């Protein structure tokens, strides 16, 4: 195994534990926002899209990369906006008046 892979696996293993630790504290009430919030976070894959598009040669590589960035960006932007809309609604007391 290369040293790079060892480092990657170390990061991966620690992230698994941090993930379980943090997520297990999220109350049941917020499970949908949790899901759409993590949905937005995996939109980080757009960074991968940018990097591959940035080094693409020829129309095939460019179109694959372009599609990846479009998908990733939609995932990311949509995820955060939808989560924000949901979280805005959660209140401990009813809103005064009608919207």
């Amino acid at each position: 195994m290369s040293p790079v892979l060892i480092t990657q696996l170390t990061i991966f293993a620690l992230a698994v534990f941090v993930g379980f630790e943090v997520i297990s504290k999220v109350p049941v009430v917020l499970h949908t926002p949790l899901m759409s919030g993590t949905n937005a976070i995996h939109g980080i894959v757009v960074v991968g899209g940018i990097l591959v598009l940035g080094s693409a040669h020829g129309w095939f590589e460019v179109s694959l990369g372009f599609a990846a960035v479009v998908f990733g960006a939609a995932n990311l932007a949509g995820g955060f906006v939808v989560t924000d809309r949901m979280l805005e609604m959660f209140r401990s007391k009813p809103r005064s008046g009608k919207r």
Partner: protein
Amino acid sequence: MIANPTYLQLSYLAAAILFIFGLKRLSSPAHARSGNLIAAAGMALALVATLMAPDLGHRGLILTALAIGGVAGVIGARRVAITDMPQMVALLNGLGGGAAALVSANEFVQVSHHAFVHGHAASFTNLFGLAIGSISFAGSLIAFGKLQGLVSEKALTSGALRIANIVVATLIVLASGLLLGGGAAAWYWVLMAAALGFGVGMVMPIGGADMPVVISLLNSFTGLAAAATGFTLDNTALIISGTLVGASGTLLTQLMCKAMNRSITNVLFGGFGAGASSSGTAAGGAAATQKPVREISIADAAVLLANIRSLIIVPGYGMAVAQAQHAVRELADLLAAHGVEVKYAIHPVAGRMPGHMNVLLAEANVPYTQLFDLDQINSDFAHTDVALVIGANDVVNPAARTDKSSPIYGMPVLDADEAQHCIVIKRSMNPGFAGIDNPLYYEPNTMMLFGDAKGAVTKLLEELKSSG
């Protein structure tokens, strides 16, 4: 490959820390919104840093693609109704999976170009990212179709589908093995096609009631696919974020399975949602029509509700379908104004995704302090005057506690039958999605109020208001 300068690495580390802080703030509804904003700030940081990478080509194209995707995402997210949230979550998840698959494919093609010089076998992480990303993409789109009503929500199980699934699964294993051994690049596209097919075949047999499990599972798949692309591109931001999402999805999948007392393999391959076709439940359904049920009129129900001190509302998917959450909240407010103690009992798998009922009720302005989950509220039913079941079925089925032959035996349920009276609002005596008969309806203290959730609750509300 683009080089990874130090400032880029540090920005990724900062972004990962912001994601973790953001998720930590989701531990309470009071400051959850700021958590989401913190995570978004982390994302912005990672994006800007990446765009500043010195040897990045095609900047114009990158910005165009970001603008197209970003604008489409924001518009979609702003326009979607809260009631359509399950399909929105499925769609966004599919986009992420698709992006991960495309990134993997692009990397493979680029590396293959140089392979003539170096000799090359595909890396495991690349194949993993491609396969899981493709499965998640296709599976999420089918889930979206089912939730949107474009694809039948019924559990579609047939021998042909089962065989097709085995064939594509074999193809996935075969193509991966060949590629790892340095096989022809054509196998890469076979792998992609097979993984897409597997995604379709995996979700098609899932019935509506099992959607919360599948949505969580696909969520975790996309996370893992993103993490895999992080390994391939040697990018820590992707590894950490993808893994966080993978952990979250896995945890939710476990919770959903536990809430149904079933294993993930049973949900995926059990064909449980097709229960109506199995002999046991069909016989139960036939016997059910023989048993008497007590019906209650709107007027009588209103009189009953006007004279109680405590009420527990048990919402289910029927409330979501009828979009009755606002009417339900008005009814609860009116009763609360008359001194009735009102609580909501939320089963973890009520609805089509984890937390579905909570989001709907929050939209209707119900404070989350009135929402209780199974463990918190189950002991309260016994000293509650009325349990009002609105469009829920399997999650209040007492057979899960008592009847060993029931397909849902052992599933934790809300004990609505233990309340003094139980009013069930339901469209007809048809069994729910799982096709399982519900003995609750024949209990002596249960009264059936037939009608769609919104209509029935609205009429109850008018009746209560007019009688003062």
